């Protein structure tokens, strides 16, 4: 890891569980009467990354209980799944988590292909992997900019969006949209990649490592960031498992759980890439996991660009798509964690039930327990490292 070893803060303060400085934990023996006030870090707040409301019962600056209230951008995706045909639900999938729209479409398309036994030609699989990994890098960049703007540094946002625009141009050339691509179809992808897309990807993959090193020099070694993130918001592997938190949250707690590796789908087994994990389980570990993940995604894109075969990009799909009755699941490693689509079909051309298990929903559900006793700025720094997208929580 370039230049980013993190050690427990050694400023002599007694450390609580997993290296949390004692000062941020309320010592139980304190005798002052419990006089708290309720602050709601409401729907419209810069650090809420959207319309998340957290009801914080505060004792001075220390949080005694932070209860997230969600539902302010509930958009009925699951209800819409039940009254439109399979193909008409595709645009919805890229509006659940608009920062990793490709992964969500990949999961829905995969589940339907699994049900209807549709074959996907190899070139389409490669295009899916390339666009998914590009989307993961773009999503991690928005997270990186947003996290640092939460901690007060506003310039990294400009750097991050600068490079993200390169990815958006590539994907816009391919699928016509900047954010809510509806690029995958049942049985393949809708538009073949021409040469300048592949050349653009190659150029991006060569250009990006230098930029990532710049990010590390600019931010990761910065003492302010290390003091703000190291030892803050410890989330143990057991808590991740109990709450179902996945993605960089569980990989930051030392468990190498990545759906691409543990439950392989599409053609990911053909690529060799590591799953970066950091055992500390604090906010710094989650930060480093995502930074390392961007490099791994670049490696995957590089290998996919080498091995992409020629050939058709659309498989054979019946005109009216009907799935045999039963339920089918498909899990995908989205930028924020494990995204599972569970489809229940009763044989008609309209799904009977579409269940979307989104990663941010479970990642946020542990916030109440993880943020108890912390001071407010640390709790917001930890929420930044959970990388939440609120429509992904409310669906």
């Amino acid at each position, binding site marked *: 890891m370039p230049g980013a070893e993190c050690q427990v803060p050694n400023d002599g*303060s007694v450390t609580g569980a997993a290296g949390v400085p*004692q*000062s941020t934990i*309320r*010592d139980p023996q*304190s005798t*002052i*009467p419990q*006089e*708290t*006030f*309720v*602050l*709601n*870090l*409401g*729907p*419209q*707040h810069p650090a*809420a990354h959207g319309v998340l*409301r957290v*009801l914080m019962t505060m*004792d*001075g600056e*220390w949080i005694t209980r932070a209860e997230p209230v969600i539902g302010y951008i509930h958009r009925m995706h699951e209800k819409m799944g039940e009254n439109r045909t399979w193909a008409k639900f595709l645009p919805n999938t890229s509006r659940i988590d608009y920062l990793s729209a490709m992964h969500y479409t990949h999961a829905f398309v995969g589940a339907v292909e699994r049900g209807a036994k549709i074959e996907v030609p190899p070139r389409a699989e490669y295009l899916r992997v390339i666009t998914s990994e590009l989307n993961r890098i773009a999503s991690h960049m928005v997270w990186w900019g947003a996290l640092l703007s939460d901690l007060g540094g506003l310039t990294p946002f400009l750097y991050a969006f600068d490079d993200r625009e390169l990815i958006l141009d590539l994907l816009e050339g391919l699928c016509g949209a900047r954010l809510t691509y509806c690029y995958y179809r049942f049985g393949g992808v809708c538009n073949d990649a021409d040469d300048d897309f592949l050349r653009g990807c190659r150029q991006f993959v060569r250009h990006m490592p230098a930029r990532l090193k710049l990010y590390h020099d600019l931010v990761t070694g910065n003492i302010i960031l290390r003091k703000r993130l190291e030892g803050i918001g410890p989330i143990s592997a057991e808590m991740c498992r109990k709450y179902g938190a996945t993605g960089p949250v569980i990989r930051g707690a030392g468990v190498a759980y990545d759906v691409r590796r543990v439950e392989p789908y599409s053609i990911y087994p053909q690529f060799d890439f590591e799953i970066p994990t950091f055992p500390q389980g604090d906010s710094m570990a989650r930060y480093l996991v995502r930074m390392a993940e961007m490099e791994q995604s670049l490696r995957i894109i590089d290998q996919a660009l080498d091995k992409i075969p020629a050939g058709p990009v659309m498989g054979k799909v019946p005109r009216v798509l009907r799935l045999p009755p039963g339920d089918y699941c498909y899990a995908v490693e989205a930028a924020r964690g494990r995204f599972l689509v569970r489809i229940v079909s009763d044989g008609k051309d309209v799904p009977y039930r579409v269940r979307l298990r989104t990663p941010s929903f479970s990642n946020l559900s542990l916030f109440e327990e993880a943020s108890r006793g912390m001071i407010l700025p640390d709790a917001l720094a930890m929420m930044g490292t959970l990388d939440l997208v609120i429509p992904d929580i409310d669906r």
Partner: protein
Amino acid sequence: MNETSTGDLIYIFTFLLGGLAFAFGPFILVYLLAPRGTRNTVHKTGQYIECGMDPIGDAWIRYSAVYYLYALVFVAFAVDVLYLIPVALVYGRDFAVRDFVELLIFVGILSLVIVYAWKKGVFAWKRR
């Protein structure tokens, strides 16, 4: 009262008037020029801003003492600066090293406040 003193009085009086005008002028201007109300839908224009939600409970509660002690250290140094202002006025006239040493002693004694607060653990920001 010879005319020089009345001149001074007038001078002070106009200066006072200028200050007041400078202070209250914008209020009057705004009252005249700015629109008086604002369009509202739930008539809560004057409510405290809390991220789009109605504030819950009251904020006038007993805070932990850490903030109070922090403010005390600030007050100690505010008084310190208060004494330094007259010194600064006469400091440069016929300078002697003695003045500088005196100043150092004065500030040194007053900075003991920080040492005392440090020992009492005010800066450790632990909850009392």
